[in-house]
Each structure stands twice: as structure tokens, then as C-alpha cells.
């Protein structure tokens, strides 16, 4: 296996992380919606908290993407 093929395979493996982060982001929004439908009055105050959870989950997916890009394009 030459270096280029190994790089492309490695980038593809790193991209799995973005899919896993998608599960996390979906879980954050889904759980918020579940809670918000049960107690709609409290929902408005908690949107900020939801976005913090969203930011934390999303960051890990973005880091996986950054790793894939570094593997592909870094010299």
C-alpha cells in the first residue's frame, strides 16, 4: 500500500467521528424536545443550556473533521 492510499483510508476512518458526533447532536436536541414538550413553560429559559450541550457535542465532530483534513492535505 503506498502512502497516498494509506492517507485516503485514514481520512475516511477519521470521518467516522463526524457521524458519531451527529448522534450526539441529535441526542441533545431530542432530549431537549422531550423535556420541552413535557414542561413548555420552563423550555424558554433552557435554550441556552441546550446550545452549550450542542456546542460541546459538535466540537468533537468538528475536531474529527479537522483531523481528516490534516491527514489529507497537510504536507
Amino acid at each position: 500500500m503506498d502512502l497516498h492510499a494509506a492517507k485516503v483510508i485514514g481520512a475516511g476512518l477519521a470521518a467516522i467521528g463526524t457521524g458519531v458526533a451527529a448522534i450526539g447532536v441529535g441526542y441533545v436536541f431530542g432530549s431537549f424536545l422531550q423535556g420541552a414538550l413535557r414542561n413548555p413553560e420552563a423550555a424558554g429559559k433552557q435554550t441556552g443550556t441546550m446550545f452549550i450541550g450542542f456546542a460541546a457535542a459538535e466540537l468533537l465532530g468538528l475536531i474529527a473533521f479537522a483531523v481528516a483534513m490534516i491527514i489529507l492535505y497537510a504536507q
Partner: protein
Amino acid sequence: MAAEHSIDPMHQFSISPVGGGALTGHFAQFTNSALWMLIVTGCVVLFMWGGMQRKLIPGRWQVAAESLLEFINSLTVGNIGPEGRKFTPWVFTLFSFILIANLMGLMPFGIVPAFHPFTITSQFSLTGVLAIISFSTVLVVGFWRHGFHFFSLFIPHGTPLPMIPLIFIIELISFMVRPFSLALRLFVAMIAGHILMDVFANFIVNGIQTGSMMGGGISLLCLIFIIFMSALELLVCAIQAYIFALLTSLYLKDAIHLHKLDH
């Protein structure tokens, strides 16, 4: 059959001097990044200047500017408390600059030849500087208000004595990582969206160039996909600007209240 169009999604992020020439060998140069920073700043200034009318019965423009400011003001006051009003100008500056910069990168100026938009927030240097300014504001405010008592931020109240060294190190690392995560999130989110749209736009061109029925079908599918992607990217632009402002106000809350107050 036409020659295969090669895909180079990273080319859109390259910085080059306005009017051509080499980037190296000069002390300072006016690049496309600087040009778009000026355009974004001009848009923000124009929007706020047009909105600051102080009329008793506000017009549409004034309502737009005031509601945007009120949105950020409720964010800072809600997170920090009544004294959060002092930090509204800085958080509002961050929010409006990042929002307009993100949106400017998506504008279809490419229909004018040789004038394609440059997303300034897709450069780590710019988002890094914004994050460092936010982080140093937190440090200055914390040390100004609490002196060396500020270090109690790293030891939550009621930590058992044997746990203190471990907790201190963990909290210190999580504190020092903040500017990196703040800058990395915005920069990578912008880069990822633009690469995705660039790759699919190239698929459209390649599909048409094959000249076959199947290539045309794939082009049409990619066109439909890219339209929905653009809508999602508009959402991501707003969310990333909001998250940057939200996290800045949360870090300021930490520096002011030192774990003491929970809203």
C-alpha cells in the same frame, strides 16, 4: 468528451494580495482577507448607524437594530446578572461581526467575474484573535475583581482536601483549553461547510461535462442537494455566531461570580 475538471476545495481559502502579485517578500500587503474584513466592518457600521435614530416611533431599520441589540442584551443580563449590561457592547460586537462575516462568505458574489467572496472566519488567525481577546477579557475582569482569589475558580466549593490537587489540574486544563475550543469551533464549522458546498458544486460541473444522461441526472441531484445545504449553512452561520457570544458571556459569568452564584 471534455477533460476531467479537477476538484480543489481548499483553493477558496487561499489568501492572495488584491490586484495580483506574490504574497511573500513584503512587510505588509492588502490581501483579499483584509478587503473582506473592511467590507464586513463597513456593513456592521452602516447597519448600526442607520438604526441609531432615537425616534419615539421607530422605523423598520431602527426596530431591526434595536431588537438585535436587545437579543444580545438579554443574553448577557440573563447569564451574568444585572452587571452583565457592562459587557453587552463587547458581546454584541463579537456577535454582529461574526454573523455578518459568516453570511458574507455565503453571498453569491461569484456571478461577477473575478470577485468571489472570501470567508474571513474560515481563517484560524482571525477566529483565534477574537477568542484570545475574549479570553483576556475574562482574565482581566477576574483578576481585577477578585485579585488572587480568582484562583478559587479552579477549586469548586466543598472539594475534599485530598482531591484538591487533582481537581485543580483538571479545572486548569479545561480553563486553558477554552480559547482554542472557541476559535476552533467557528473556524472548522465554516471550513467544513464551504468544502462540502465546493465539492458538490464541482460534481455538478463534472456531471454536465460527461454529456451522458446519467451525468445530467447526478448534476440535478447535486443541485437540489446544494440548495438545501445552503439553507442549512445559513442556519449554521447564525448558530455559530450565537454560540460564540453565548460562551463568551458564560466565561464572563464564571470570572465574575466564581462558582458562587447559580442562575
